[in-house]
């Protein structure tokens, strides 16, 4: 079961997430729309993702373990149920679509490689990441 995150919760953290991401990407905060693809729309590179994570950790006083988005997406599935040789299984892909519900269906490729998952990420993905980390911090 994936925990539900409401649109209201996302909109609460979005302004701060957007400001933090704009700092990391060196762009205007207005460019950070909730559903823009970070790689294809904002030219983010892999080091930018690390930069964003480090800044979000500081801004929200949370810990985001490396690889957390994929782990969250995988949910209860075992690694073998989620992917085989770097390609998502049909079950894994279905699960990813649920987790990344903000991403339009046509942006998911089939077959979908694990390495290409980051291409789907949007600012909303990072809002959810922050909210999940906040819940885990509270629960701990």
């Amino acid at each position, binding site marked *: 079961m994936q925990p539900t995150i409401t649109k209201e919760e996302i909109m609460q953290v979005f302004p701060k997430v957007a400001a933090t991401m704009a700092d990391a990407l060196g762009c205007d905060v207005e460019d950070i729309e909730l559903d823009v693809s970070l790689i294809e729309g904002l030219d983010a590179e892999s080091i930018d993702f690390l*930069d964003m994570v480090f800044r979000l950790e*500081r801004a929200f006083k949370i810990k985001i373990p490396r690889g957390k988005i994929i782990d969250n997406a995988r949910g209860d599935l075992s690694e073998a149920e989620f992917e085989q040789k770097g390609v998502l299984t049909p079950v894994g892909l279905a699960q990813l679509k649920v987790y990344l519900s903000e991403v339009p269906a046509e942006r998911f490729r089939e077959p979908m490689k694990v390495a290409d998952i980051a291409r789907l990420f949007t600012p909303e993905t990072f809002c959810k990441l922050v909210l999940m980390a906040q819940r885990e911090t509270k629960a701990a």
Partner: protein
Amino acid sequence: MLDSGLAGRTAIVTGGSRGIGRAIVELLAAEGVDVTFFYRDNVAAADSVVAAADARGNKIASDKVDIRDSQACAAAVDRVAERCGRIDILVNNAGMIRDNQLAAFVDEDVQIVLDTNVGGVFNVTRAVVPHMIVQRSGKIVNVSSVAGEKGGRGQTNYAASKGAINAFTRSLAVELAPRKITVNGVAPGVIETEMSQPVRDLAGDDVLARILLRRYGTAEEVAYAVWFLTSRFADYVTGAVFNVDGGFKME
């Protein structure tokens, strides 16, 4: 006088209580850098570095950290970041030797050298780099050795560790260039330190015959190269490994 741009910067130097590390710590501190050095176990040596700096009015702090322990490294780096607000410079200097013929090694001779010399560089650098990425600046200098490029009897473990550091330096330079963080190496030859004493005692004449300048180097002479690579004069240098070896030839 030329301004190195170092005054007011903050630095972490590993293995800073003795030898080359101590010379690096003291030179950077003399330039106005707020230096924290890590050391493994020699509390008396570490305290004497800090006391000497206090007497000169320089800023040097020490922290006892086993760099083979990644969590200890992360915690120590966070302490520096908290105290200083930023980390501008990292000098990975800590290293050890355990020389012997390959066939005579026991497991620990190999493991401890690789864990300290290579594992330590990974552990400390992994903890520091997030700070530098966010700052969009930083200078990393890895102290390697001529042994990383040239063969030497009894040093397969040490040579492998130093060759690894050179490869690490070049790859990390590529990775961090988008954030204007430079990564370079300094490869000393035979330097007059406690660590090289056994080699110098055992094969001094042989070794000197291979050094073009016919003398051993001093820790300060290595520190000057590190100083250059951490200063603004080296802003356009990255992925380089700089030899400070008096022109060393090895078989």
